[in-house]
């Protein structure tokens, strides 16, 4: 077997059957090996960035590792944004790039880049393979490492001569994952029991650890009110009476108020990102904090924890649930208070179907949430539409909400949706995007058509970069600067050029029919939704400001949460 065949062998041993890639000079030996391999489906995207983002979407939706492949030089550099996106959101990803033959490295050869050096800051680990006999062990380690503990992308850069070389080393055996010990939660439990106003704050770490069930059992056992980060949306499940929704810059008043008033913040699988906490000085000022995470480096990184538990979230949460089942928390007054805040300070939007008025983004998303099946996967892009989905779509599971949280990558949604559709061909996958984001990876319409993916594409088109326009309006004296997109193409005609049918709607009374039409269609379909240019995402906290200083639609001035909600 040569090096390329050993890579495919590693895929098979780890049940990797779908990869996203784009061929080119130095990676050609691997593509040659793919010709004879019927067990690996290679998805040809139309840009390497989309390969990486599709692999990311595949991993988020499935919980399995995502794999992307590109050639050296521009192929590898085009992957970078997608890999950085996976790194920021801790997505398990294997990145394979071709490299110029070993003797040519460092000679400025055709399509040579030092991709190892360029990507040090956006990978969990990386390898430049310099010995063909080391390749099987490197592949084994890379695949295992990408998925272990806190997941992340692992990049393997392989010179062409290594791909072609006969490999004498034996096939690597699968690495064993060490078992961790049952955690001691006694001290944390005592803190929890002594708290009068405990609040659960959960993030993307819950689903990364595949701890959704343990998390929900824990929530049920405690009855603790909860807030979620952008990546934690869906953790508590649909209809949880004490879920206050997303906190932070575009969080609900109720969620931010509960954080302000709680006396114990119970943080699970979250890294206290600045978009969630706002100015740290004013964040949860009355609370002690218990921080539970798989990554020791997140503990005390931004705010010191009064108590920290590091390890497998399933084991830790199960230990809490077991201990709490015999004696529940006595927090009924606090629960009642949080429910009141949720009623008065939760996300609101008008639901007027009959109006001939222009379509409001939040109202559209609420309708979509009601009409789409519970298990639909929503892949967002970045901007106002992303926040409207986070605020108004009710998710039953965190893996149904694909969003670029850490990096905020415009252009994420369409390729991520493609990846999610490959993760489950039978699921309903909807890309909700904006006109700015859509154009960043619009070439992937060709991928949808090629594989006849039944994806549903929804463009909320306000003919501008809405989130930038909103911040220019609110924080830069309404001095609009380079946000105008009123020369967008005709998106309906554009979709049809790729043989994808499309509809246009612009009035509120067309929302339901538009959504039902695309969901009923047996194949890919695009819905172009014209929305107002002036609509903003409310509430908003000024970047760098405290979450107490939320601004809303009726009062475009700073006002304390206390005044608004209490």
């Amino acid at each position, binding site marked *: 077997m040569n090096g390329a065949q050993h890579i495919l062998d590693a895929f098979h041993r780890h049940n990797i059957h779908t990869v996203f890639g784009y061929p080119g000079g130095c990676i050609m030996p691997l593509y040659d090996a793919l010709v004879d391999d019927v067990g690996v489906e290679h998805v040809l995207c139309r840009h390497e960035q989309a390969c990486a983002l599709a692999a990311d979407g595949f991993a988020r939706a499935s919980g399995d590792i995502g794999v992307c492949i590109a050639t050296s030089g521009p192929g590898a550099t085009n992957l970078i944004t997608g890999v950085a996106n996976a790194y920021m959101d801790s997505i398990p990803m294997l990145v394979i790039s071709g490299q110029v033959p070993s003797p040519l490295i460092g000679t400025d050869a055709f399509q040579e880049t030092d991709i190892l050096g360029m990507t040090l800051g956006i990978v969990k680990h990386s390898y*430049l393979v310099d010995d063909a006999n080391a390749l099987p062990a490197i592949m084994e380690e890379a695949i295992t490492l990408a998925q272990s503990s806190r997941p992340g992308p692992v990049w393997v850069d392989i010179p062409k001569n290594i791909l072609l070389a006969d490999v004498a080393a034996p096939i690597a055996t699968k690495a064993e994952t060490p078992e961790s010990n049952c955690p001691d939660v006694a001290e944390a439990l005592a803190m929890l029991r002594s708290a009068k106003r405990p609040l659960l704050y959960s993030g993307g770490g819950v689903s990364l650890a595949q701890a959704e069930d343990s998390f929900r059992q824990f929530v049920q056992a405690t009855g603790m009110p909860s807030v979620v980060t952008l990546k934690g949306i869906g953790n508590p499940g649909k209809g949880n009476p004490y879920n206050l929704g997303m906190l932070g810059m575009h969080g609900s008043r109720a969620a931010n108020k509960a954080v302000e008033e709680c006396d114990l913040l119970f943080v699970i699988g979250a890294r206290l990102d600045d978009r969630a906490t706002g100015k740290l000085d004013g964040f949860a000022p009355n609370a002690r904090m218990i921080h539970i995470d798989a990554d020791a480096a997140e503990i*005390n990184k931004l705010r010191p924890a009064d108590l920290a538990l590091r390890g497998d979230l399933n084991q830790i949460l199960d230990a809490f649930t077991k201990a709490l089942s015999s004696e529940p928390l006595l927090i009924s007054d606090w629960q009642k208070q949080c429910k009141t805040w949720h009623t008065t300070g939760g996300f609101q939007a008008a639901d007027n179907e009959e109006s001939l008025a222009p379509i409001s983004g939040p109202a559209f998303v609420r309708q979509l949430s009601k009409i789409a099946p519970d298990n639909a996967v929503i892949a967002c892009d970045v901007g106002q539409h992303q926040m409207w989905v986070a605020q108004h779509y009710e998710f039953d599971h965190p893996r149904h909400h694909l969003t670029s949280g850490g990096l905020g990558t415009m252009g994420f949604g369409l390729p991520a949706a493609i990846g999610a559709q490959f993760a489950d061909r039978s699921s309903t996958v909807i890309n909700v995007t904006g006109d700015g984001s859509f154009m960043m990876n619009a070439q992937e319409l060709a991928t949808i058509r090629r594989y006849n993916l039944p994806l549903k594409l929804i463009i909320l088109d306000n003919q501008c970069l809405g989130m930038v326009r909103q911040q220019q309006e609110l924080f830069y004296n309404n001095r609009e600067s380079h946000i105008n997109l009123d020369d967008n193409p005709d998106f309906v005609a554009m979709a049809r050029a790729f043989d994808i049918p499309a509809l246009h709607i612009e009035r509120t009374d067309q929302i339901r029919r538009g959504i039902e039409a695309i969901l009923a269609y047996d194949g890919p379909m695009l819905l172009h939704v014209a929305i107002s240019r002036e609509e903003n995402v409310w509430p908003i906290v000024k970047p760098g400001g405290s979450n107490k200083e939320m601004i809303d639609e009726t009062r475009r001035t700073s006002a304390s949460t206390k005044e608004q909600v209490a």
Partner: protein
Amino acid sequence: MSPQAECSTPSYNLNCRMQSEAAALERLCQVVRVRGFRISEMSMSSGGEHLDIALTLEGSRPIAMLRAQLEKLHTVEEVLVQPLSSVRSALG
């Protein structure tokens, strides 16, 4: 940087043992820089399959944060940190 500011910036000695690999030193230095520290002195010795790297660092962020980030690197085996003032007093 003014002499006053220089005096007030904490300094540390950091010793790190890493597995020997193509980008070991770059990997270490990249994390040090991104996490807010400046390398003022550096030495390295290679022994078999590992590298021993000694850095003198300056930075106002918590050194424990840097240490935790370095310990996450797959090829880092051990990180030891000492405030430079305590090193000096031990020598003195």
